[in-house]
C-alpha cells in the first residue's frame, strides 16, 4: 500500500470517527439547531401572535416617565424597553447586583404595560433574566435553544462541550472535502434502487455533499460563538493586556464617558425613536436608557436588519438633549474588519438576516445535515452488522434517531398544557428528561421486537404526535386558523402546517418501508 493510500485511509478513519464518536450529541445539536432557527416563530405560534402591532407609540414617552417616577432613583441606572408577551410594552428599571448563581446582573422592577392605553398589566421585582426574559410563551423555544447552545450543561462547561462538537463537525466537513475525489459528480448522485448499502450511501453522499459548505459555515460559526466569550476573549485579553481588565474593556468597548449626575429632564423618547427609525432604515426593536434622568444619560436603540443588510443596527443618542451621538461598533470604537467579522458570526449562524427566505434555507440545509449524521451512523453500523460488539447498535440508533424528535414532540404537547396552567418553565425541561428516560425503558422492554417493528412504533408515535400538536394548541386556547388568516398570524399557520406536513411525511415513509418489506419477504 502506498504512503498516499495510507494517508487517505487515515483521513477516512478520522472522518468516520469524528462524525460517529460524538454523533449522538451532534445529532441533538443539529436537530435542535434546525428547529430553533424558527425560535421567534415558535414563540409567536405558542402565543397566538396575530399581526405585528407596534409597542412603541407616541405614548411611550409618557409611559416611561410615569413608571420611572414609581421606581426608586437607584434603579434608574439602566432602563430597558422592548416587546413583552401579548404585544405589551416591556419596561424594566434596574441596577447591577450580585446574582446568587454567580456574576452580576441587573436587578430591579419590571412592568408590562399596554402600549396604547398605558394601563399596567403586570408588575414584578427581580433579576433581568427572571423578569424580562421570563416569557411563558418562550419556554419551549428557550428550552430548545439551551439544549442547542449548551446541552443543558450549566456554565462554561456546556459551551466548551458544544464548541468541541463544532470543531468535530468542522473536522468531519474538512476531511469530507479531502476524501471526496468526485465532489462535483456527487452533487448529482441519483439513488440506486432498493434498500441496499449502496442506496444508503448514495443518500448520505447526496445530503452530505450538498450541505458541505453549510456544514463548514455552521460548525465554524457555532464553534466561534461557543468559544469566543468562554475561552477566546479571556485568553486574548490576558496576553494582550497582561491581565489588565480595565484596559481590555476600554479597548473593546471604548473609554467610559465622564459621568455627570446632574438631574435633568429626559428628552422626548418617541422623537428619538422616530429619528432612529429613519437612520437605521427599520423600526426600533428595543432600547436601553443608561443613567436615566442625568446629564450624561444615553439612549441606545436596537434595530433588526434592514432590507438587503446582513446585520442589525445600534444607535446612540444623548438622553438629555436627544442629539444623535454615534452608531457603536460591536467591538472597538471605530469601524474595522474585526468588528465586521464578529458582527457577521451570529446572523450567519442563525440565518435571520433575510426574513422567511433565509430561515427556510437554513432549516432545509440544517435538515440535510441532520439526515447526513443519521445516515452516516446507519452506514457505520451496517458495515459492522456482523460484528457481535455492534449488534445492538442499530436498535440504539433507531431509539436515538426517532426518540429525540419524539421526546421533543411530547415536550411540546406538555408545554402547551402547562402554558395554559401557568408554569411552562418548570415543566418543559422536566418532561423532556422524563420522555428520554421513558424511551430508554421502552428500548429495554422491546428488546425482542424486530428492528422494523420498533421503527414502525416510534415513527407512528412521532407522526401522530406531530399531527396532533396543532389540535393541542387549539384546545389549549390558541389562535384558530381563521383568526390567523384574518389577522396575519403567519407563525401559527406556518408552524401548524409544518407539524402536520412532517407528521404525514413520517407516516408515509413508514408505509412505504412496510410495503417494501412485504414485497421483498418470501410469499407464505
Amino acid at each position, binding site marked *: 500500500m502506498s504512503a498516499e493510500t495510507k494517508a487517505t485511509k487515515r483521513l477516512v478513519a478520522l472522518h468516520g470517527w469524528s462524525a460517529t464518536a460524538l454523533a449522538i450529541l451532534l445529532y441533538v445539536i443539529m436537530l435542535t439547531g434546525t428547529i430553533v432557527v424558527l425560535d421567534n416563530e415558535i414563540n409567536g405560534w405558542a402565543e397566538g401572535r396575530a399581526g405585528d402591532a407596534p409597542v412603541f407609540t407616541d405614548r411611550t414617552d409618557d409611559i416611561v416617565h410615569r413608571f420611572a417616577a414609581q421606581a426608586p432613583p437607584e434603579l434608574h441606572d439602566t432602563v430597558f424597553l422592548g416587546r413583552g408577551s401579548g404585544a405589551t410594552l416591556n419596561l424594566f428599571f434596574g441596577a447591577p447586583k450580585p446574582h446568587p448563581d454567580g456574576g452580576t446582573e441587573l436587578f430591579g422592577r419590571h412592568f408590562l404595560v399596554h402600549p396604547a392605553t398605558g394601563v399596567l398589566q403586570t408588575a414584578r421585582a427581580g433579576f433581568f433574566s427572571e423578569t424580562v426574559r421570563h416569557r411563558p410563551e418562550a419556554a419551549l423555544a428557550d428550552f430548545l435553544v439551551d439544549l442547542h447552545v449548551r446541552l443543558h450543561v450549566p456554565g462554561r462547561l456546556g459551551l466548551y462541550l458544544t464548541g468541541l462538537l463544532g470543531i468535530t463537525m468542522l473536522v468531519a466537513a474538512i476531511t469530507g472535502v479531502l476524501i471526496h475525489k468526485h465532489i462535483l459528480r456527487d452533487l448529482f448522485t441519483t439513488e440506486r434502487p432498493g434498500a441496499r448499502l449502496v442506496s444508503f450511501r448514495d443518500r448520505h453522499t447526496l445530503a452530505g455533499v450538498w450541505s458541505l459548505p453549510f456544514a463548514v459555515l455552521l460548525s465554524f460559526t457555532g464553534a*466561534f460563538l461557543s468559544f469566543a466569550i468562554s475561552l477566546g476573549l479571556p485568553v486574548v485579553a490576558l496576553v494582550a493586556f497582561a491581565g489588565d481588565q480595565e484596559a481590555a474593556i476600554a479597548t473593546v468597548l471604548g473609554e467610559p464617558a465622564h459621568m455627570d449626575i446632574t438631574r435633568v429632564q429626559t428628552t422626548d423618547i418617541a422623537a428619538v425613536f422616530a429619528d432612529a427609525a429613519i437612520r437605521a432604515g427599520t423600526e426600533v426593536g428595543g432600547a436601553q436608557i443608561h443613567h436615566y434622568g442625568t446629564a450624561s444619560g444615553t439612549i441606545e436603540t436596537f434595530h433588526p436588519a434592514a432590507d438587503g443588510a446582513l446585520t442589525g443596527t445600534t444607535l446612540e443618542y444623548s438622553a438629555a438633549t436627544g442629539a444623535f451621538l454615534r452608531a457603536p461598533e460591536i467591538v472597538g470604537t*471605530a469601524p474595522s474588519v474585526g468588528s465586521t467579522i464578529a458582527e457577521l458570526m451570529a446572523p450567519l449562524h442563525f440565518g435571520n438576516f433575510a426574513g422567511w427566505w433565509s430561515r427556510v434555507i437554513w432549516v432545509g440545509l440544517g435538515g440535510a445535515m441532520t439526515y447526513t449524521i443519521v445516515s452516516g451512523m446507519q452506514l457505520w453500523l451496517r458495515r459492522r452488522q456482523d460484528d457481535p460488539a455492534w449488534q445492538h447498535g442499530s436498535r440504539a440508533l433507531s431509539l436515538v434517531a426517532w426518540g429525540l424528535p419524539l421526546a421533543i414532540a411530547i415536550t411540546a404537547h406538555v408545554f402547551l398544557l402547562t402554558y395554559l396552567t401557568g408554569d411552562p418553565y418548570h415543566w418543559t425541561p422536566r418532561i423532556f428528561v422524563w420522555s428520554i428516560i421513558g424511551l430508554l425503558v421502552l428500548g429495554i422492554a422491546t428488546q425482542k421486537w424486530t428492528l422494523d417493528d420498533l421503527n414502525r412504533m416510534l415513527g407512528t408515535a412521532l407522526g401522530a404526535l406531530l399531527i396532533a400538536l396543532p389540535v393541542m394548541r387549539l384546545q389549549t386556547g390558541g389562535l384558530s386558523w381563521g383568526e390567523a388568516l384574518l389577522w396575519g398570524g403567519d407563525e401559527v399557520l406556518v408552524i401548524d402546517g409544518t407539524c402536520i406536513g412532517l407528521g404525514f411525511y413520517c407516516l408515509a415513509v413508514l408505509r412505504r418501508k412496510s410495503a417494501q418489506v412485504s414485497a421483498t419477504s418470501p410469499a407464505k
Partner: protein
Amino acid sequence: MRAWLDVPRQGQIWIETRVDRRPTLWRWLLAGPLAFLMSVLAMAGLPTVLPTGAGGVNHLVLPVVLFPLLWSSFVVWPVAALHIGRVALVYVALCLGLLVLIGFAFAI
C-alpha cells in the same frame, strides 16, 4: 561556535527519529491534545503580531475568529501528513515561537 550552530540540526534529527519510531502514537498526540494546545497558544500569541486596525481591535478579534479553523487544521494535518516527524518538528518550532511571542507580550 560551530557546535552551537549545529544544535538546531541535531534537535531536528533527535525529534524526527523519535517520532518516526512510533508514528501512530504521535499522530494521536499531535492531532489530539497537542492540536488543542497549539491552537490556544496561537490564539494567545497572534495578538502580539497582528495589526490593530482602525478600530484598535483587529489583533484581538481575528485570533478568536481563527481559533476554530486553527484547531481543525492542527487536527487534520498530522493525520493527512506523510512524514509525521516533520509535522512534529513544525509543531515544536511553532510552539517555541508562540511561547516567545507570549513571553514578550508579558515582558513589555
